[in-house]
């Protein structure tokens, strides 16, 4: 059968756990607090992933389990109540408190759902407490957002209103732009999950058409569909082509006239083509290897291959939901190796053997690969940067062309090829 070659491997991994997604989720909802119930490792992980740049008291923290909590679970529940109350007293502006499970809390089976229920009763509506797991024994990186959003789905009010629901965190500016375009195309009611205020939850029901803005929201999509919503399957809005097909899928669901949709999108596509041209000149024919981390790897690979002319050496992904990724898989060239899971040592062996021009990888691997002479792009930057939509296609391509351009700029100066060539000319 034609199509990409789907492979699996397991072994030692080099990926973040789901707690990391708190770094962007807490910025999306400024009235929410994310309290990890875990260990010093969890606290250290989040602050390291976020950098040490905390310019104010952050809206995330860790209730660090101590030996006493491990000795008696009943005490642990009392302690958690105490910590939550202390926190809410300190931060009265918080409207939603996410209790986030971690590896240690899952292993000792600390029941955070029960804790949330108990706290909700006590706080009687002043603050809403929800729980989900971001533990590394169950979730990888972006799956944390899936957990957080899935925890919100049962709280969404029932509504049969005809609406488009955009699901997945987008940069505010990008989201504004996409909503504006959908409105121009003729969709009147558009809501987002997660909302910008945690209390401003959209309704859901039979009239809801869900368009996933991010590829890692399997569980959230399933729960929304259980609530009566229709979940569209489309390529994801990365690159001009993917974004266009993503928007057209929504337009079809709302039976919008093709001419009107084209009238909105055609000029954008034209602009995107010219924005892409400069980067395509750098990227064309270059070979790229994507290591698994964010689940954005498939849509990115599709964009880089189809719109930037790159050759795909291997496309890793921590997890592959074939149903949700059907449209993406269909757009990948035949025989593209798509590797689900990871054995980081064997994967690095393949990187070294294939000597790609660019590797997309986590921060732990980037400098070591650079030191071996292989250019890299941090995957975490792709989660933090505004890259969605037709208008961002050029910027997205630039994230990949910049490391290659930089090498062209500085390598001759830093690695003089002949002995009489002055280094600092």
């Amino acid at each position: 059968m034609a199509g990409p070659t789907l492979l699996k491997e397991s072994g030692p991994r080099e990926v973040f756990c789901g707690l990391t997604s708190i770094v962007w989720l807490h910025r999306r909802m400024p009235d929410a607090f994310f309290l990890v119930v875990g260990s010093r490792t969890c606290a250290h992980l989040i602050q390291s992933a976020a950098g040490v740049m905390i310019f104010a008291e952050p809206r995330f923290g860790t209730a660090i389990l101590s030996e006493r909590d491990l000795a008696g679970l009943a005490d642990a529940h009392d302690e958690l109540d105490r910590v939550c109350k202390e926190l809410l007293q300190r931060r009265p502006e918080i409207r939603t408190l996410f209790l986030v499970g971690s590896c240690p809390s899952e292993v000792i089976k600390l029941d955070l759902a029960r804790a949330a229920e108990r706290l909700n009763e006590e706080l009687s509506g002043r603050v809403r407490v929800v729980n989900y797991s971001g533990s590394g024994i169950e979730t990888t990186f972006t799956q944390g957002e899936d957990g957080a959003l899935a925890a919100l789905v049962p709280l969404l009010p029932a509504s049969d209103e005809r609406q488009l629901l955009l699901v997945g965190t987008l940069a505010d500016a990008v989201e504004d732009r996409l909503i504006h375009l959908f409105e121009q195309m003729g969709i009147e009611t558009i809501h987002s999950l997660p909302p910008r205020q945690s209390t401003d939850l959209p309704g859901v029901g039979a009239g809801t058409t869900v368009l996933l803005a991010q590829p890692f929201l399997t569980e959230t999509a399933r729960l929304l569909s259980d609530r009566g919503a229709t979940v569209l399957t489309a390529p994801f809005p990365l690159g001009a082509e993917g974004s266009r097909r993503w928007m057209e899928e929504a337009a079809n669901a709302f039976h919008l006239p093709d001419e009107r949709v084209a009238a909105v999108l055609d000029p954008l596509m034209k602009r995107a083509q010219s924005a892409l041209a400069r980067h395509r000149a750098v990227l064309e024919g270059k070979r790229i290897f994507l290591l698994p981390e964010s689940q954005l790897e498939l849509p990115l690979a599709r964009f880089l291959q189809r719109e930037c002319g790159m050759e795909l050496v291997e496309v890793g992904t921590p997890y592959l939901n074939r149903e949700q990724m059907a449209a993406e898989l269909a757009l990948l060239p035949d025989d593209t190796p798509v590797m689900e899971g990871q054995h980081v040592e064997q994967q690095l062996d393949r990187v070294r053997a294939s000597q790609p021009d660019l590797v997309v990888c986590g921060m732990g691997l980037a400098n070591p690969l650079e030191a071996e002479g292989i250019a890299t792009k941090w995957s975490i930057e792709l989660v933090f940067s505004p890259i969605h939509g037709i208008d961002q296609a050029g910027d997205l391509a630039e994230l990949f062309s910049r490391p290659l351009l930089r090498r062209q700029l500085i390598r001759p100066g830093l690695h003089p090829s002949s002995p009489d060539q002055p280094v600092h000319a």
Partner: protein
Amino acid sequence: MQLTLWTYEGPPHVGAMRIAASMLGVHYVLHAPQGDTYADLLFTMIERRGQRPPVTYTTFQARDLGGDTAELVKRHVREAVDRFQPDALLVGESCTAELIQDQPGALAQGMDLTMPVVSLELPAYSKKENWGAAETFYQLVRHLLKDQAPANSEHDPKAWQQKGRRPRVNLLGPSLLGFRCRDDVLEVQKLLTMHGIDVGVVAPLGAGVEDLRRIPDADLNVCLYPEVGESTCSWLERNFGMPFSRTVPIGVGATHDFLVEVHEMLGMEPPAPDEGYRRSRLPWYSESVDSTYLTGKRVFIFGDGSHALAAARICSEELGFTVVGLGTYSREMARPVRAAAKALGLEALITDDYLAVEGAMAEAAPELVLGTQMERHSAKRLGIPCAVISTPMHVQDVPARMSPQMGWEGSNVIFDDWVHPLMMGLEEHLIGMFRHDFEFVDGHQSHLGHAGGAGAADLSALSDIPGEGDGALRWTADGEAELKKIPFFVRGKVRRNTEAYARDVGCREISSETLYDAKAHFKA
């Protein structure tokens, strides 16, 4: 359970990683879930390392927990040994694996591996990073050397004199993710070499397993970083009779004391007392007339134990500052820090809550903060200049240039790094003074960004004055005008003091006279 928004130290297994990554030929198999691999970026990003830390994570998942996680450990140990062929293997667990009690160390020790296997037990729920580093280094050294320990430890640090060779010392404690360790080692090596003392083993930084076995060949151990090296040094003293030096050579006075200590232990003539004056520029720079304005500058110090202690001594004895706050997050070092604070008439701040540190900093109203990367952020918020003196650090605290803290050159670096932010403080004041001159172009940017400078001088938030009416204190126009002449970084403190004084003496209006009365009162 403790609410933590930010932490100065990572978990103890990160300390173990620091030891493994510092050394050559040592590999660490860590029984841990996938998320724990974040720790690699501390080395590859903050230290800009071009190699991955030598760590294999077993990355067990929820579905493995029902099955045989012990087999998983053994598989990863075998794979790591085959692939990396280390000279010594560390085996341990992170917080989550500690709960499932697979005993990975014992499992690995039962696998008939050819290299030394050190089982690490680092209690994740009660200990922290520096302790983990110290314990790992100690366990590794002990494992490699315990069979060599002599029955009666008659080690004579002066024996080199009979052996026809130069005296030889080991430098113990420097590690990756320590503050300026790379450059400190070079500087201390240079310093000792200048005095005819050879450096034998430097460990863990840059050492291999065979180097550790050579530790007993030296006459003396130098405990360069007590946070990481002291437990190893004590064990070597107890079991091999090797004494160790305790002075951390940061600052002119401490470097001199360090040289005296080492020379005496080795039975050598101590160096000339004016060596520091000749070799370092700090003494003259501090004595030069330009530095007069440094006198009595209010300094707030917070960091790991060794660097906070060193900073307190340098500030009070070598730069003529007034230390207005001293503290550490290293509980292991609480006792000496408390003593040092007491000697300065202060109560030490021993905490790992950065918000408590920020609160104490605001309260002390310093003109300079010496702290960790977190205090740099806090100081920025408060508009106070800051220099970083201790871990935790950021990529910018690993400079490309040689910039030690120890020895004579370290003192030079310290003079520059600590005094330059203050110069900026003076410059801010000058900008404030001249801002009404017609030559002054609006838009002279503050070096402190938006938080600092004359533009940010509205410190009324720091005033204790209650609302209008109810017989409250009132500043007269000439009182306000006088207050504005005071440098912005102490203005808040002066305002508060003056108001407190006014209330004490029952004065309701604060004029320039009241301000001077208050000043005289507090200086008296």
